[in-house]
């Protein structure tokens, strides 16, 4: 049986690349086996566990249920795209500080769902986090420290945004107060 290979044009974590994959590949398979981006995980390959969650145009998406050609022309963000050149995303760092990743296998999917939550709701409550992560199964943590980490990251992101506002203000206004002293 000859598997037909197709060239698919994907924009992942800001880079546009063409990859040759079997036409029936899912986005997850294309990421993991076509592009070497193994951060997104296969836990069930049928949309039940959420370990494959990536962001497609900012929306949490089960990549194991997404045909690869559906991702063409869209912005795909995986766990590998959350960190910037300055270091890990606050979510990633807070996960480490709070012990929110034990085996770590569900973590990439959870981080994508959490990143989407913070974009939409910069000040979530604990039950907002619960709802946002309801499609991501974790077998290790009981979710407790995941909530702590996401809420801490939300605080940190809010604070750094307001710090930046003050810094910009300080640059514009000589003699203004120190950054962070709101």
């Amino acid at each position, binding site marked *: 049986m000859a598997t037909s290979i197709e060239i698919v044009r994907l924009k992942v974590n800001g880079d546009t690349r063409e990859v040759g994959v*079997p036409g029936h590949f899912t986005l997850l398979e294309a990421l993991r086996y076509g592009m070497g981006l193994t951060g*997104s995980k296969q836990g*069930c390959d049928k949309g039940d566990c959420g370990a494959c969650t990536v962001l497609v145009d900012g929306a949490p998406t089960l990549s194991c249920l997404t045909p690869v050609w559906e991702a063409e022309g869209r912005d795909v963000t995986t*766990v590998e795209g959350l960190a910037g050149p300055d270091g890990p995303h606050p979510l990633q760092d807070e996960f480490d500080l709070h*012990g929110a*990743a034990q085996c770590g296998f569900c973590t990439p999917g959870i981080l994508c769902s959490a990143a989407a939550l913070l974009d939409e709701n910069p000040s979530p409550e604990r039950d907002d986090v619960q709802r946002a992560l*309801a499609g991501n199964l974790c*077998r290790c943590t*009981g979710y407790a420290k995941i909530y702590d980490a996401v809420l801490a990251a939300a605080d940190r992101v809010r604070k750094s945004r307001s710090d930046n506002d003050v810094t910009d203000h300080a640059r514009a206004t000589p003699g203004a107060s120190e950054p962070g002293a709101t």
Partner: protein
Amino acid sequence: MLSDNTMIGTNMRKVEGLAKSTGRAVYTDDITLPGMLHAKILRSPHPHARIVSIDTSKAEALSGVHAVITGRDMPITYGIIPWTPDEYPLCVDRVRYIGDGVAAVAAVDEDTALEAMKLIEVEYEELDAFLDPHLALEADGSTPYIHDARKEGWNGNITKIVNLEFGDVEGGLDGADVVVEGDYFFEGTTHTPIEPHCAIGQWDGVSKLTVWSATQVPHYLHRELARVLGVEQANVRVLQPLVGGAFGGKSEPFDLEFCVAKLSMVTGRPVKILYTREEVFYSHRGRHPFHMKYRTGATSDGMLTSVDAKILLDGGAYASFGLVTTYYSGQLLCAPYEMPAYRFDSTRVYTNKPACGPKRGHGSVQPRFAFEVQIDKLAEKTGLDPMEFRRRNFIGEHTRTVNELRVTSNGFLECLAAVEQASGWKEKFRAMPFGRGLGVAGSTYISGTNYPIYPNEMPQSAVQMQIDRSGRVAVFSGASEIGQGCDSVVAYIAAEELGVPLEWVRVLRGDTDFTPVDLGAYSSRVTFMLGNAAIDAATKLREQVQKAVGEAWDVPHPEVVLAAGEAMWSQDPSRRMPIAEAFNLGEAKFGTLGATGWYNTPKDVHGEYRGGTIGASPAYSFTAHVAEVEVDPDTGIVEVQKIWVAHDCGRALNPILVEGQMEGSAYMGFGEALMEEQIYKDADHGRAGLHNAPSLLDYRIPTTLDTPELEALIVESIDPEGPYGAKEAGEGPLHPSIPAIANAIYDAIGVRMDRLPFTAPNVWRSIEKAREAGTLGKPSAPVPTDRPSEAIPAD
């Protein structure tokens, strides 16, 4: 000594934490090798059948297929327990459950392998299948047994029988003021790690075999691969990448590991197998269904007199750890309460279902459920608060159980006090409105089995440590990081003892080509045994550095302190040098700095009777839970609002990691109590022996929306033999989840749930029965006691 620790006992990052949260962490399926083939295993559709013939010729002829193997290509049996090697990597002449592997195909890609599987022609002769353990036990041989009889006079469906008795059980029951009898059933459940099993085999074409596997036991796998494949052990290399959860489901060799190795040897190419999620359900090795009958006697003032247990273990198609499970079904019940007399009669049978094995708490979770509910019933009969009943029977510290297990540190009373306080027990127990209730339960667990799986006198854990002139410390560890944090534990110990920042410690791990033997991540042994091995190695290096610096400063070497990146003199901290300089002095004096450390267990910690070694451990953890529930009497829906978990872990080396284990354990127990069932269809409801729900959609594990609030309360009894006083935290905290919830349901509505799981239909049926019997309603409060407990924890 305690106050001298600068790092141990503080909240710290994990060494692989950022790798996990940035997607850089490497798990087995993340590995691709040049020319790698993909393989699939063909599995039996019958629960019990003879293999009459297998024709692989059409599959072999398919373009893209490199090799097809069957059971005859690997005709050597194996089994994790040396006395029960009852499995082949691929079945040779008999299949024993739906899912049992019969052939494997290696092809250029997964699609081709799947196509090829359809072309393999297997002729089966179906045999009568045993799905009910009672029927398996009563079988008379008129239809073939599942295995050959293991003992003279046994039917071939029996794996193991254990009958152990300590003290005068019948006398203790006859002399009791109250006796409670109960039948209990704990349904089978499975691990569902989010990572499916995965293995890669690579044969070098000459003599060396390399296998990567998501295994908990690289050392045992190493031995079995060599034996089954006929390769010298010294020419087999097992690498263990990070593992995405295991919980006992990856703690023995599996078919895929042998198949990738054999297929690589046959094709000359690397070969990978990744289980589908369905295959994970079929490989199972999870919690045995237990059918239990308990009789427990007590005096009128709440002192236990005697405990008798009869247990039938439903073992599935193969032995797995079953010999050991049968002992665990009784051996770990004798603490934290003192029992003057105890007997258990346990029988494990084979059935034509996926094999059961060790799941977090291995064989002691089920009896603990039954017994903690028995205690609740006894407390009610004697008019005592269940907390008080437990306190009165506290076994104490530094003592022996009735089955002669040595107990050392024991913080159980502190655990009870902590959950009593935190939950508001005194105000709420028996006092909340109908429909709301609290339940309590206690338990104990081993910090590692006292003996290795194959008998030997060698260390059970070892590390090597090496110091670079830059100050960088390398730890070579063979231990299995499965998410519990063992790589981090050795790094914390190296950093603590040698005074370097945590970032300067490298943990090089999981490769039998260069890491010393650690027996694996099972029985909650790793912190205790690996931790002690790490302290041994670090201490040897520390003393060398202290001596060199002491000589340079002309001070006694014990007064040289290594901490926070420096060496300093304790008598005058202005005498100091950077730690790398101290290391260089050490290297100049003693030569290149490297040390091996190891640990083995004390041997005089158990009785001499047959089976006395099982349940033996260098230290025991203790746990207490209180669960708060709300039950809707019209629907049977149980909502667990909160679980308070108090766990005596000896010493929390990193409190965040210990809390994580406590929360994760409570979560897993909660899932078993409320929703998990590894069950199979019968002939009237589909195909007999077919897994009812082999997906993460249908096999319910708790999501964020289901999971109760979890509060972890660490208790530290500072064990005399644990590393810095530490004991286990990985399995113990699970045990009380289920009985605490059962007891809370009783407090809420007066209905006893003696059978798992407490799903809405099951609870509703019990409620309706109680309604008809007129027993539905809040139970009455215990009689206040004027005799205060003598066993009150000292302030």
